[in-house]
């Protein structure tokens, strides 16, 4: 018996392609992710280690840009399919699933708000599977309160005014100066989807830019030492008068906040799906262990007190999956889904925290050791309640929707 959870969850897909995609995902997960996750996470906990090779493999297999338009190299898949792929990846390697979700988020502003010329110029690279993006929104003094950001994009007098939007590198039209905090993939990303202030009008003064990873003036802080999710390298990104063409500004000046919020609605679903996969893996380990471990002369699972705990975990995981899939279906149908996405993020990440906590309980002392994966799952679950909007912020979003 092995205690690395092997997920064989029942899945429904709107198309046959979904099943083919699932087979492909499970193969890549079994051969590339499961065998490598433990060593890579342990190494990353001690120093720098980033699973670039894994992202390349996923990229070549077409799994890095599933929800984006086919004409620019994406997979053209509905969220209902894409998110289940994220969940499968998370069941083996949470950092990588978060990376896939973050990468998707970085392209969202271009696919949704970019001009035809910008999509033409930027997306083929972003969606090629060879590039990885980072999403620069948070700042040291602007976490939940995004509108408090101080990173500034100043118009560079003589530069390109963006006319023509041809994506060509003319004279810079903006120079970005400031500091972003907690940026996943920082130092490894090929481009940084960056939000910066173009006027002082708080939420209405922010704009969105796609900054190339090799832009002059871009540098990075030391990797944060985190309690988990070690292969999701997180650092500060420092912008020292980084030149950016006007053609790389997505949307109008001042449209950054609505773009960031729309992207987060979609991104939250990715986090909800990843949290569900993580919870499922913890549950699988707990179930296997409960059936095998004997105390008082019988399997611990034959105690109703423990069996009911497992039942509650099962209910939490299925509830989380149902919540994100419903929000996904709304999104795929073109309906508003912001409230449902926030509910899904809240339910799924709280489920992940609870399920991983109780999975350790089921394993007793063994669960508290690194001989079993549940202590890692537990450390990874915690962050899902924090990023892409803390769960307090989700409640803020939900209550605003509910109360109008």
């Amino acid at each position: 018996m092995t205690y690395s959870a092997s997920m064989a969850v029942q899945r429904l897909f709107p198309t046959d392609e979904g099943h083919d995609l699932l087979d492909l995902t499970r193969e890549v997960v079994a051969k590339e992710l499961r065998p490598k996750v433990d060593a890579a996470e342990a190494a990353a906990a001690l120093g720098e280690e980033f699973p670039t090779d894994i992202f390349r493999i996923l990229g070549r297999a077409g799994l890095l840009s599933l929800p984006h338009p086919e004409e620019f190299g994406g997979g053209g898949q509905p969220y209902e399919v894409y998110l289940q792929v994220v969940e499968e990846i998370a069941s083996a390697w949470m950092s990588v699933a978060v990376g896939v979700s973050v990468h998707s988020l970085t392209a969202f502003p271009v696919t949704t708000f970019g001009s035809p010329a910008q999509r033409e110029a930027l997306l083929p690279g972003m969606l090629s599977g060879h590039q990885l993006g980072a999403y620069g929104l948070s700042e040291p003094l602007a976490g939940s309160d995004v509108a408090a950001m101080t990173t500034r994009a100043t118009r560079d007098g003589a530069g390109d005014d963006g006319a023509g939007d041809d994506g060509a590198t003319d004279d810079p039209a903006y120079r970005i100066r400031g500091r972003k905090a907690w940026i996943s993939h920082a130092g490894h990303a090929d481009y940084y989807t960056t939000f910066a202030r173009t006027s002082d009008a708080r939420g209405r003064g922010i704009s969105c830019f796609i900054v190339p990873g090799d832009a002059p003036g871009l540098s990075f802080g030391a990797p944060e030492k985190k309690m988990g999710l070690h292969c999701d390298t997180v650092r500060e990104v420092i912008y020292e008068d980084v030149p950016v063409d006007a053609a790389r500004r997505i949307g109008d000046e001042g449209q950054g906040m609505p773009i960031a919020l729309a992207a987060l609605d979609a991104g939250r679903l990715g986090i909800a799906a990843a949290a569900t996969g993580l919870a499922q893996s913890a549950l699988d380990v707990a179930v296997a262990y409960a059936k095998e471990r004997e105390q008082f002369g019988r399997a611990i699972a034959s105690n109703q007190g423990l069996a009911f705990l497992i039942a509650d975990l099962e209910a939490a995981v299925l509830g989380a999956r149902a919540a994100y899939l419903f929000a996904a279906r709304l999104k795929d149908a073109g309906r508003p889904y912001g409230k449902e996405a926030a509910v899904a993020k809240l339910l799924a990440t709280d489920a992940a925290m609870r399920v991983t906590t109780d999975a350790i309980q089921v394993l007793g002392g063994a669960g508290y050791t690194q001989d079993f994966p549940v202590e890692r799952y537990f450390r990874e679950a915690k962050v899902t309640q924090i990023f892409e909007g803390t769960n307090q912020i989700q409640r803020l979003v939900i209550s605003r929707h509910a109360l109008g």
Partner: protein
Amino acid sequence: MNIVVCVKHVPDAQADRGFNESDNTVDRAGVDGLLSELDEYAVEEALKLAEASGGEVTVVTIGPDQAADAVKKALQMGADKGVHVNDEAIHGSDAPATSLILAEAIKKATDGNPELVITGMASTDGTMGVVPAMLAERLGLPQVTYASELTLGDGKVTIRRDNDANTETIEASLPALVSVTDQINEPRYPSFKGIMAAKKKPVESWTLADLGIDAGQVGLANAWTKVVEIAKRPPREQGEIVKDEGDGGTKLAEFLAARKFL
């Protein structure tokens, strides 16, 4: 160049594999199957050759309905077309019969002119490893087997074969048959685009009659050998526990000496 790759659908080695009780053949219905991993190297090598110098890759399999999945996987990886020979009379065929069917299918698929036939070095279920040689013989082609490297030259193919004590470089004139090892390349995963494209690729389904083979030449009843009995390997027994009462080292040494390790 038209390249033919022979692929086999085998029970998943990760699953609990077994045999049919009635006739001692491999149980192919009761377990999930997949494209034999050793054949993935053959598909990959063919795709690389076709990508480098143009050409078409045809994959051929023999097997029951599920074997279509092996062809599908190869098409998803990038092969151009597939052939699936499926006939109830084939059940239980041995290596000579399998090579006969493959030979006829390859001839039919290439109008009698295969330029290069690539196979894995063995299947992961039967692991006989004799089909490539038999097939080459039936097709009248030179055989260069166990290739860990393959290069195409002007009208010839050169391979490297790594043996225990030496490495051979072997050359054969084309057309030829090459069997490849798991050292030759790193098989690709299908891409999502490849999966979509595979749905539109042609797959021929042939019976023995389509190939002009008489059912009396193949199948379990006509096999040259027969599996008489199968016994599962007994579960491993508990090892001997040496309790250290000050003489643990001596006991350990005695244990190893008794087994001639010391």
